[in-house]
């Protein structure tokens, strides 16, 4: 009888524990991987101005690079938008802080897109930025390898291949592969473009660094086998309470 009562209590206790949303759990796990390596967490606003979301990031007006991120511009509010990435947070950080530094910036972002299993108008990103005197592409590799190995497992490897984002040069796409599996596209990254550094008042002759941006939704979908990104945002506890 006592045994039964214990069991019952355990069960009730279990039922009584709610769930952190799986996306925030994933963000938390990844942030921890970086804070353990001495990164600072930076946060910012979801409404941004054109300058911090695009111009300072070397994405000029009337340039096709702007089409790479379909934007929610705000009505009756010139030059204001819902941030398309958390890069604006990094711009503010660079302007307001001394170099060198290591930061990660998690947050909700928005893109004006048709929604389907892999696209939502709102999703979550985590961007990283390291600026110092001799930071190079090999250091980026290290940061990303540390992340995938701690998050997905020791048998996961990464590869860099050419990519294009106006705010980095060189720009790379990063793929990962588990064991003998296929290469899967993971994230975009690169060495911060000198124009971006200069726009933020950092001497690009003295300092350089890397940046990366990871889509949290995709990471969560891959790790936990969730097939539809829209399921993260309908508040259905039949998904949320599984984790």
């Amino acid at each position, binding site marked *: *009888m006592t045994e039964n009562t214990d069991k*019952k209590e355990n069960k009730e206790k279990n*039922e*009584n*524990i*709610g*769930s*952190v*949303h799986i996306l925030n*759990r994933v963000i*938390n796990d990844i942030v*921890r991987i970086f*804070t353990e390596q*001495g*990164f*600072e*967490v930076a*946060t910012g606003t*979801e*409404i941004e101005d054109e300058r911090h979301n695009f111009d300072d990031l070397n994405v000029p007006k*009337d*340039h*096709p690079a702007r089409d790479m991120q379909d934007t929610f*511009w*705000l*009505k009756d*509010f010139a030059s204001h938008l*819902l941030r398309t990435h958390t890069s604006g947070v990094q711009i503010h950080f660079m302007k307001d802080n001394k170099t*060198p530094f290591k930061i990660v910036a998690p947050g*909700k972002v*928005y893109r*004006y897109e048709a929604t389907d299993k892999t696209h939502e*108008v*709102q999703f979550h990103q985590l961007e990283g930025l390291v600026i110092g005197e*001799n930071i*190079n*592409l*090999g250091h980026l590799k*290290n940061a990303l*390898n540390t992340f995938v190995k701690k998050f997905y497992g020791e048998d996961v490897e990464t*590869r*860099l291949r*050419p*990519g*294009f984002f106006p705010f980095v*040069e*060189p720009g790379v*796409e990063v793929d990962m592969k588990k064991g003998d599996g296929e290469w899967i596209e993971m994230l975009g990254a690169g*060495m911060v473009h*000198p124009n971006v550094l200069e726009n933020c008042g950092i001497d690009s002759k003295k300092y*350089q660094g890397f940046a990366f941006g990871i889509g949290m939704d995709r990471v969560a979908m891959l790790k936990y086998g969730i097939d539809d990104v829209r399921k993260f945002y*309908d*508040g*259905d*506890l*039949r*998904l*949320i*309470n599984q*984790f």
Partner: protein
Amino acid sequence: MIFSYNWIKEYFDEELPTAEKMVELLTVHSFEIEGLEEKTLSDGTMDSLIDIDVLPNRAHDALCHYGMANEISIITGLRLKEIRSEIFESEEKITNQKPAEIKVDIKEDFCRRYIAKEIRGVKVEESSIEIKNKLETIGQRSINNIVDITNIVMFELNQPMHAFDTDKLDGGICVRFAKEEEQITTLDNKEVDLDSETPVISDDNGVLAIAGVKGGKKAEVDSETVNIVLESANFNQSLVRKTSNKTGIKTDSSKRFENEITPELAKVAINRATELILKYASSDNTNVFESVDVYSDPAEQTEINLTVQKTNSLLGVDLDTQQISDILNKLKFKHVINEEVLKVEIPYERLDLNIETDLVEEIGRIYGYSNILDQEIPSMDFSPKVNNEYGVNTLIRKTLVELGFSEVITSSFVAEGILSPMKPFADDRKYLRNSLKSGLEKTLNLNQKNADWLGLDHIKIFEIGKIFVGEPENYSEKMYLGISVINKQGIKKPKPGTFIKEALERLSEILEQEIKIKINEDQDIFIEILLDEVYESINSEKLSIKEGTVEYPMFPKIKNSSYTNVSQYPFVLRDIAVWLPNETSVDELVSILKNKAGELLVKEPRQFDEYKKDDKTSYAYRLVFQSFEKTLTDEEINKIMESINSEIESKGWEIR
């Protein structure tokens, strides 16, 4: 863009790697590949189509077959046929060119270069099979030999071209802005209203084309055409982009101009087109006229000093001057070496290469990113600070989850509000939320319906998210915590407000500050709290679990390591209550329930009542049935229940 393997092959004498191998090489050195497929053309020819994602940085040079062939030549080391110099010479080869008669008048500086070339006595007919095949592979429609040739040249060299019927022109060609209320009927018969900001090509009487975007009906080349004027021009990138966006006309031509191409290409293209017209569309009476070339703003030769130091420092490698020079040779970039500095002459079409770091990328990708070693980030003079927003949010999540609350993330877009996006994406999501309330209410209702499936008597949820208040210009963005509770239908106590009150008390305790929100335990099912104030007043040290470092609170352990799909079909409930002798373990009953219910039982049987009387105890369980394939009928479930009942009876237990 779709590339034809057969087409690319024409530019090489040596044998190319297979399409699969090419895809592999391009992936690691140059571009992302979207797809590769075999295609049988209508005449039976086999080709491989490679869908290559050429992004804006390389659209200047590689959004065309010859440009892509050059890239392949660089990464494979195979020699590319130098068709360009041949083309350059080809004009001189046409010895009997007549002096130009066409007049070209450039009125605006959005046109950096305009080449017009008249050819008389052409034979307009169906294209030859070689040309038709090329167009078919890349998904383009064949019109007639002249129009097809202008398209072929664009997909070969990246230079958009146009052909006008000379006999339909009134006077010469003029490049200008449209006049207010001018109109054009485009080649696909659409009427487009123009304004004084629209760049156009016109003759003395009217508009012939929207510059760089789309040709017009007026001077269209058709089967009756005998004399043509070829246009190979260069129009300002952002003006073409604006025009294309404003008119809503996106073409292969506008795409190339808005990405910017070098005006140097115009000459190559006009020669190539002339060569092809002489080959495929000439008659005994064909006469070629000299080009009129108005080149007001010539391209400048870019030179970049590339240092060994910067290359190594950015890439994290240890290359010497000679190694870098070798890579530049592979890239076919002319350069002179001056000790540790390489002065590099950039090909005209590579408009993406402007500064030293641009060249470092070229070195890196040809050297191979896989050859760069993983290197530990050197220690730096930086001590991370606690981020109060992130820390407080983490602490709140942990606290509420421990109290049985679950976190939801709802849409930032709602049906009513003030701030809104210019183009909303759905009628019921026109505004940015100014409260978390409506999102949480919707969520409560959804989950209340599934309370039995979830095994919950109380749906307890929260959200931490931004809300947006006020008018544009003086709006503010605030971080809020919303907490909401509803009971399962039929469950009266405790009331939702009791849980909310408990949550607020615990949060006040944990955050060490009083949360001043009045709550009516009998009525309230929703509250929201401004968090920005908490971030300001919290003691940062409280947010790190390890003194002297930044280590944010940990969440309770995750419950499952992978997601189990949820059926879209309705679920069916059945309750069963059984008297068990006190000495019998309830586990025995549960295992019978599970075994007999089988696959359709989607959740663990949930006990909702236990009642002891003398030497026996009554246990009541609720069973949730659901199928992934269909809506379950009562009959199906009754059958299962019967088998459960008979198994229980055979044990000698009494069903209540």
